[in-house]
Every structure is written in structure tokens, then in C-alpha cells.
């Protein structure tokens, strides 16, 4: 009986399994600031998690049982239960702007955009512990993160240096840097290449990390920003903040397949299991939902300057399965 009494408020808030249990979307509002948990079906706010200063990005732990949110202005990382939104732990971390686990799940790389630093942490899953292994100063405004699949190298975009830096995760030293274009932002590893959104221009730069050169550019729209491979080897979606669009690239040829106009400055994306795309619209304080099949976009109001976003499917959480979709970056 007592358990039921405890569970009722959670059931009411939609955080426990039950008939008609809703999927949720985590939205990180950088200027309100806070984390909103939104019912994916109704768009109603289920929960608001206050954050100290200025959160931007989020990532799931390798076991997908902890959601980490970086509060760059507040100098802390919040550790949330992705099923309930409950704050499990807060830890003092210097300027965590962006954060991502290595493919082998052993390391967490954190970029400090305002402190021009990249921190490499060891991850202890049982205690949710972060152990600082090394700090690298690769250049001006380190922003987004990618990895080589074997976890040997991490690649960081340097927005103020027009470059990317490859950091050797064994030696924790800069292996090489490469000029790629004005204000590089998003970066992903794709079929042995690095794809980089050149925010100060209108294209994606394709970099061969072995030859260390830009081998191709793909025009997607002004303010090319972040890239998101869709589940199951589908198209790669690229956001452009100035032209306010999302561009679908063929995953093999990297040719432009389709362009979706999405007003409001689309930034981060997350996919649901129907293949729809949840997008934060930075300048309109909106959460957008794009159906790539029809091109239809619907929006709902969230907090100011929404940035990171993560769709979580309840069934997936209940089974603790890894999502097919990549995380918002």
C-alpha cells in the first residue's frame, strides 16, 4: 500500500510504466535555464529540472542508464535517471559545454568552450564517477566531439581556430590539427571519414583523417551546424542555423537527397522509432517535430534557446536496450 502511495505521484507524472505510458523528450534550455521533460505525444511538460546556469548538451552513459547534462556556466554535470528525470548526482566539472563517451565506453571527453580546454575523464559506471585523466588545450573554442570507432582518437572542432584537432587518447596529446573552414561546429565519424559542419559557411567538409586533408565539400545551407546519422544506416541529417533548414544526405554518396525548411534555427536532433526527427529550434524557443516522409513540421513552445535534445522511448527504457538512433549532439 505504501509503495502504491509512493508510486501514485510518479504515475500521475507519467514516469512509471502503465497503460498508455508516454514516450518523453528531454530538452535542454540554455537560457532559461533548465531541462524540460516533455510528453512526446501531447507535448505537455511533465517535469522541469532546474539547472544552475547555462546547460547545452547531454549524453547517455554507455549502459544508457544515466543521462549526463553539462551545465557549462554552472561548472557542473548533472547525472539524471533517464527513466524518471530524477537528479541522481551533481558533480563539479569545469565548463562542461559538450560531452560524449568513447565508443568503448571507458572515457568521457568534455569540451570547455569558454576555457579552451578538452578534458578526458575515466568513467566508473557503478559509482557514476569521473576521474580526470588529462587536459588538452587544442585551440580556441573547442566545441563538438567525434571518435574513431576503435576509441584511439577523439576529434574536436575548434570554432575560433577554423580547425579540428585529433587527440590521441592513449598519450592524451594532440596528434594533429587541420584547418577546415570558418567556425567548424558539428563533427561525426562516418565510413572512415570525418564530416564537419562549417558554421561560418554553407557546407559540410569531408575530411580524410589518414591523409589529413579536406577532400570534398557538400553545400547544405548557410550556418551549417551539426550532423546526425539516422537509425539503421539511413540518411545523415545536417542542420543549418542561418538558412534554417535540415538537409538529408545520402549515407553512401553524401549527395543531398532533400532539403527541409525548418524555421527557428534548428540545432540538435534526436530520432524517434517512427523515424521522425525532434529538433531544438534555438531562436524560436520551440521544439520541432519533422516527419521526413512528408516534410511536415509541427512545433511546441519550450524554454529559451533550447539546445540539446533526446527522445526516449518508454519500451526501450523498460527493456534497457540501446536505441537504434544516435544521441543528440
Amino acid at each position, binding site marked *: 500500500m505504501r509503495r502504491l502511495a509512493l508510486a501514485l505521484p510518479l504515475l500521475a507524472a507519467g514516469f512509471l510504466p502503465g497503460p498508455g505510458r508516454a514516450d518523453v523528450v528531454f530538452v535542454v534550455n540554455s537560457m532559461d535555464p533548465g531541462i524540460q521533460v516533455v510528453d512526446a505525444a501531447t507535448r505537455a511538460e511533465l517535469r522541469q529540472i532546474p539547472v544552475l546556469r547555462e546547460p547545452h548538451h547531454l549524453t547517455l552513459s554507455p549502459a544508457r542508464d544515466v543521462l549526463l547534462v553539462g551545465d557549462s*556556466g554552472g561548472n557542473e554535470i548533472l547525472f539524471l535517471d533517464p527513466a524518471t528525470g530524477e537528479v541522481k548526482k551533481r558533480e563539479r566539472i569545469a565548463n562542461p559545454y559538450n560531452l560524449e563517451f568513447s565508443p568503448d565506453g571507458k572515457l568521457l571527453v568534455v569540451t570547455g568552450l569558454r*576555457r579552451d580546454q578538452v578534458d578526458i575523464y575515466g568513467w566508473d559506471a557503478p559509482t557514476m564517477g569521473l576521474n580526470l585523466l588529462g587536459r588538452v588545450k587544442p585551440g580556441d573554442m573547442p566545441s563538438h566531439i567525434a571518435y574513431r570507432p576503435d576509441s584511439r582518437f577523439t576529434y574536436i572542432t575548434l570554432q575560433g581556430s577554423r580547425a579540428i584537432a585529433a587527440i590521441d587518447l592513449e598519450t592524451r596529446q594532440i596528434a594533429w590539427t587541420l584547418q577546415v573552414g570558418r567556425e567548424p561546429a558539428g563533427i561525426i565519424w562516418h565510413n572512415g571519414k570525418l564530416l564537419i559542419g562549417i558554421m561560418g559557411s554553407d557546407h559540410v567538409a569531408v575530411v580524410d583523417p589518414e591523409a589529413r586533408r579536406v577532400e570534398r565539400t557538400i553545400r547544405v545551407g548557410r550556418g551549417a551546424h551539426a550532423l546526425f546519422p539516422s537509425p539503421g544506416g539511413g540518411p545523415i541529417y545536417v542542420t543549418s542555423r542561418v538558412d534554417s533548414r535540415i538537409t538529408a544526405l545520402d549515407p553512401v554518396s553524401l549527395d543531398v537527397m532533400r532539403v527541409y525548411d525548418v524555421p527557428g*534555427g534548428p540545432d540538435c536532433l534526436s530520432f524517434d522509432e517512427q523515424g521522425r526527427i525532434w529538433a531544438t529550434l534555438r531562436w524560436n524557443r520551440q521544439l520541432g517535430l519533422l516527419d521526413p516522409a512528408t516534410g511536415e513540421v509541427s512545433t511546441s513552445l519550450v524554454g529559451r534557446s533550447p539546445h540539446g535534445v533526446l527522445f526516449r522511448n518508454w519500451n526501450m527504457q523498460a527493456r534497457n536496450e540501446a536505441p537504434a538512433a544516435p544521441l543528440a549532439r
Partner: protein
Amino acid sequence: MFDEIIRLYDSFTSWLFQAAVQPALYAAGMMEWADDAFSWMDFFVFGVVQVLVVYAVCRPLEAWRPVERWEDRRVVQTDVVYTLLARLGLLPLMAFVILSGVQAQIAGWIADLGWVAPNLETLIPALESQPLLAFALYILILDFGEYWRHRLQHTLPWWWALHSIHHAQEKMTFWTDDRNHVIDDMIAALWFGGLALLIGVPPGQFPLIVLILRVAESLSHANVRLSFGRVGERLLVSPRFHRLHHGVLSAGESGRNFAVLFPFWDMLFRTGDFRRDVFPRTGDPEAMPSLVHGGWWRQQVEGTQRLIATIRGSG
């Protein structure tokens, strides 16, 4: 209604950013500053809002019950120039942006040490879930800082050399609030912005706090015969309360009524004057004519010369 105002404001800033600011940043090759520009665009919009709000509140009051009437309003126009230069928030913005970079380094370094930086929410964790209370506390602390800055402006000779420009105005209106030497403005911005960062004012709340204090300060300078009553006079600074501070007998080190928003500080430090139910003439009898009647540039030059002379000991 409040939601509707926020919605309108968001629509406007969203349009302004996407139509003008972001394309300009893109063209200038400064897209790495887009996030910051979006935050700080609020300053400019708030500056415009400040002028409009202050004008809408104060001008009808001045027309309704003026303390003084003047035929020649040229010196008032000089104060309008001061306001337009200062109210767009450029000086506080500069101080805050510069200090933000420094603060990010310092706060990050402190975080590395594992020590919790001294802001209100970490000192009082309950405030994390009470943003309105935290907001009120920020205002209270910043107002305390403003009280002491204002006292020092009157106490330190070199600072009074600058601040006397503010007190030289014999035709005080709500525009007079911004009648300050640029060096004085810069010191004020560093003082205010530095304290805001020290106590951890969230960047998103900073412009709103500035707006509240600015509106209160403008109203307190208005040429209006308005008192808030026996109790109200002790809760908020009124035009009557602040006019006593600007009265000819109150200029310089013998000043009274230094508070900006809450007269409580004057009560606490025994500098409050609640007894005289009068609306005195304003101005500084010792001010040079150029400080009284000169234009913006003349007053700036004069203020700088007075500062140098005071520092050299010949002022």
C-alpha cells in the same frame, strides 16, 4: 497577459536575431559568437524598452505635477543625449562580457579544485528551486552595492570630481539619471557587473535586474512633486527622497539619501533624511558653469580635467 508579453518579446527578438543579427554575424565571419550574441541582444532590446518604459512612466508624471517649470530646456536635452548613449546598455554589457570571460576562467579553475564557487544558490541550495526568491535576493545585494558605490562617489575627492557632473544639473528630470562622466559610468559598470558575477547572477536575469534598477533610478530623478507617504518613503526611493539628495545643500561630501532602490540602507547606515517634507532646488553651487550649461563633450572634457587635477592634488 504576462505570458502574452513574453510571447511578443520572444517573437520580436527571434525575428530580430534571424533577420538581422545572425546574417550580420555570418557575413562578418563571427558565427562562433552567435550564441552569445543571442543572449546579449537582449541588452539592446532592453535598452530600447528601458527608454520607452521610463518615458511612458515619468513624462506624464512630470507634466502632471512638476516641481519646477522652465522655459529654456536646452540643458535637459543634454541629459537626453546622456541617456541615449548609456541606456542601450553598452557599458554594462562591455563590463559583463569582459568579466564573463575572466569569470569562466576563474570559476572553471575553482571547479577543478572541487571547491564550490560562492554564488547564492550554492550557499543556499533551497534557492535552486526558488528562482523568484533568488532573483529578489540578487536585487537586494546589488542595491546594497550601489548604495556604497554612491557613498564613495561623494566621499572620495577624485570620484566626486567625476560625479559632480551628475549633481551640477539645476533642471533635474528623469533624463538626469544618466548624466555621468564616461569614466564614472565605466567604474559603475565594473562595480555592478563584478558584484553580479561574484554572487553568480544568471546571465539571463542580469538584463531584467538592470531594467528594474534603471526604471527606479529614472523615476527618482523625475521633476515631479511625488512622495510615497510615510511608510512608502521607507520602502522605495521616491522622487522626493532623491530630490533631497540632489538639493543644493546636499551636494558633495555632506550628501544624504544615497540609496538607489531601497531607503533601508540609508536607515541602516544613518544617512537617511525623511524629515524634510520639501522639494528643494537642485544643483551644486560650487559647480563650474561648463558643468551646468555645457554640452555632453564639454562636460566630459571638464570632468576629465577635474579628475586629473584632483589626483595631482591641485583640484
